[in-house]
C-alpha cells in the first residue's frame, strides 16, 4: 500500500513534441484515481511513466516514500492491466498468473496458494488449465486482473482495461474492479476515455486535455463545478449545452433577450463582457409561460431513452438539448418554457474557457 505523488511530470519526445506538460497531483494510500480525457491528451503516457514503461523527461514520480524515476518497472512494485489484456498466449491461465512470482523466486507452495486465492476471488478457478485463446473477453480480463493481484503490488495501473468488452460486460466488470480495489485496499490509477467509467470508479478524478490537467477533484465536484468549458462538455452525458451570452450585472447573464441568474458568477466582471453560458440538459426544468426567469425553448424532436427523454430544439436561436422525465408530455414540436436553477448556471470565459466563478 502506498501513496503516489507526481510533481511537475513532463514527457517530451525526441523531436520536441510535449505529450505531458507538467502534471502534479497525489493519490492517497488506497485511493482510486481516474485519468480521463480524449485520445492523445497524454493520460496513457502519464500512466506509462508511473509504470516505468516510458522515461520521465522532467519532474518526479514517487510511490510510497521512494522516488521511482530511475527504478525499472519490475522494481516499482506495481502491476498493470492492459487494454488488450497482454496475456502470454503460450501459457495456461495458471502459468500466466504465476509468471511474475516465478520470476521473483517465490516458493512454489506460496505461488500455488496465491494463484488459487486470486482465482477464487475472481471466480476463474475452473479456467486455470486453459490457454488464453480458449477464453472469452471477460474471462481474459479476469485473468489479466488475476495476474495483477497475485503479485500483491502497492499500486494497480489500469490502461483502458474495459474498452475491448461489450457494453453489458463493461458495466459488470466496472463494478467488480471497484469492489476488488476496495476489498484489497490497493492504490489504483485508471486511464479511460469513458466519462461514465471515470465518474463511477474514481474518488479522485483527473481530467486531462492536450497534455495538461484541466481539473482535479472528487467526481461530484468536477461534475457540479467544472473548472473549464472543456471539462464541462467532456463530463456528463448528454454533454452540457454551451450558449453565447453577456454579463448583465453582478450574478446576472443575458442570453439573447432573456436574463438568467448565475449564483456562482464572479462579481468583478464588466457589464456587456461576452461569456459562454453552460446549461446541463438534466438541470433544465419545464416552467409555465411567463414565469419569472423562464426561457422559450422551441422543441424540434424528441428522443425516447426509456428512463428519460431528450428534447432537441432551439433556445434563443441556438441548438439546445434538455432531458426530461418520461411523464413530461410535450408536443413533438412547438414552444415550451424552461427554467434553470441559478446554482446550476455555469459561466465560462469566451477566450480561455475558464470558469468565471467564485474561487
Amino acid at each position: 500500500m502506498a501513496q503516489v505523488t507526481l510533481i511537475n511530470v513532463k514527457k517530451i519526445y525526441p523531436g520536441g513534441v510535449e505529450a505531458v506538460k507538467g502534471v502534479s497531483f497525489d493519490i492517497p494510500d488506497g485511493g482510486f484515481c481516474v485519468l480521463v480525457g480524449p485520445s492523445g491528451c497524454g493520460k496513457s503516457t502519464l500512466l506509462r511513466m508511473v509504470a516505468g514503461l516510458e522515461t520521465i523527461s522532467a519532474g518526479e514520480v514517487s510511490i510510497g516514500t521512494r522516488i521511482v524515476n530511475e527504478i525499472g518497472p519490475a522494481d516499482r512494485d506495481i502491476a498493470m492491466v492492459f487494454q488488450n489484456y497482454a496475456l502470454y498466449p503460450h501459457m495456461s491461465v495458471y502459468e500466466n498468473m504465476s509468471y511474475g512470482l516465478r520470476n521473483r523466486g517465490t516458493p512454489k507452495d506460496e505461488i500455488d496458494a496465491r494463484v488459487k486465492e486470486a482465482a477464487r476471488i475472481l471466480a476463474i478457478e475452473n479456467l486455470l488449465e486453459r490457454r488464453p485463446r480458449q477464453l472469452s473477453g471477460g474471462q481474459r480480463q479476469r485473468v489479466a486482473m488475476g495476474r495483477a493481484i497475485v503479485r500483491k503490488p502497492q499500486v494497480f495501473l489500469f490502461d483502458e482495461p474495459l474498452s475491448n468488452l461489450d457494453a453489458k460486460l463493461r458495466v459488470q466488470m466496472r463494478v467488480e474492479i471497484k469492489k476488488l480495489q476496495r476489498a484489497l485496499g490497493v492504490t489504483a490509477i485508471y486511464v479511460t476515455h469513458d466519462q461514465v467509467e471515470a465518474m463511477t470508479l474514481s474518488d479522485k478524478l483527473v481530467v486531462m486535455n492536450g497534455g495538461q490537467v484541466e481539473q482535479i477533484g472528487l467526481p461530484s465536484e468536477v461534475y457540479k463545478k467544472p473548472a473549464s468549458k472543456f471539462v464541462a462538455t467532456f463530463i456528463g452525458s448528454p454533454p452540457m449545452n454551451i450558449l453565447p451570452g453577456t454579463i448583465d450585472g453582478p450574478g446576472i447573464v443575458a442570453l439573447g433577450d432573456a436574463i438568467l441568474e448565475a449564483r456562482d458568477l464572479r462579481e468583478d466582471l464588466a457589464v456587456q463582457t461576452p461569456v459562454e453560458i453552460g446549461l446541463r440538459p438534466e438541470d433544465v426544468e419545464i416552467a409555465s409561460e411567463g414565469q419569472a426567469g423562464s426561457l422559450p425553448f422551441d422543441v424540434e424532436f424528441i428522443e425516447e431513452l426509456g428512463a428519460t427523454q431528450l428534447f432537441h430544439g432551439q433556445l434563443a436561436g441556438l441548438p439546445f438539448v434538455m432531458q426530461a422525465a418520461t411523464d413530461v408530455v410535450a408536443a413533438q414540436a412547438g414552444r415550451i418554457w424552461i427554467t434553470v436553477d441559478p446554482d446550476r448556471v455555469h459561466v465560462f470565459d469566451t477566450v480561455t474557457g475558464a470558469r468565471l466563478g467564485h474561487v
Partner: protein
Amino acid sequence: MQKNAYFTGLTVPLLLLLPQLAITVVFFYWPASQAVWQSFLLQDAFGTSTEFVWFENYQALFSDPGYLKAFINTAIFSSFVCVLSLSIALLFAVMADRQIRGAEVYKTLLIWPYAVAPAVAGVLWLFMFDPSLGMLARGLSTMGIAWNPRLNGNDAMLLVILAATWKQISYNFLFFLAGLQSIPKSVIEAAVIDGARPMRRFWTIIFPLLSPTTFFLLVVNIVYVFFDTFGIIDTITGGGPSGATETLVYKVFSDGKGGSNLGGSAAQSVILLIMVIGMTAVQFRFIERKVNY
C-alpha cells in the same frame, strides 16, 4: 445460409487449376517419375544399350563407401548450416528489433546477401579464402594458422559451411524480424512488469512466441541446405578435396554428369526424394505439435 460461392460442375474448377497442375506435372511429376524409371536401368558408357536391372543400382550404391561418406558429409554440412544460419539470424533480428534509429538501413544491408546468386557467393568466398590470393587466408597464415581448403578436407568443409550460412542468414533474418515485430508490445511490457530480465524474457516469452516462424524456417533451411547449396559447393570446392565436401545432391550431379552413371545417379536422387519427404513429414508431425499457442 450459403456462405461461399462455389461451382456446381467440375469443369470450371479444373480449368482454373489447370495452369498450376500443368506446371506441377511437367516440372515435377514427370521428371520425378523419369528418375524413378531411370534408377532401374543400366546403360553402357556410350549410351548405346540400356538394360532393366531392377534394384542393382541401389545395391551398388549402398555398397559404395563414397556414398556413405556423402551421407556423413551431408549430415555435418546441413546441421552446421541450419544451426548457424538460424541462430545468427535470430541474434541479428533481435538486435535490429531493439534498435530504432537507422533500422531501415540496417535491414536493407542485411538483406543484400540474399540477392547474390549461389555461384557468385561461392566465388566470392573462394577468393577471400584462396590460400594464395585471398585476403582472409593470408590473414590466417600470418596468424600462424595453417589453411588450405584445396588440400585439407576439414578446411574445405568449413569454407562451404561458412559460405552457405552467410547466404542464408539474410533470408532467416527477414522472417525472424517479421516474427519479432508481430509479437504485441504489451505482452513484452507485461513481462517486464512481471519482473522478467531480458534473457529470461527472451527464453520464456519471445522465443516460444517465435516458434511458428522458427519451425517454418527450419523446414525451408533444410530444403535449402539439401538442394540449393549445390552452386556454392560446385564453385568453391567442386566436392573436393577427394570428396570431402561431396554432399548427396552434389554426388547426384557428379556421378550422373561426370561419372556418366545415369542409373546410379537417378537412384541417388530417388533416395534423396524419399528422405526429404520423410523429414518433412516428421517435422510436421512432431515439431509442429509443439508449436502451439
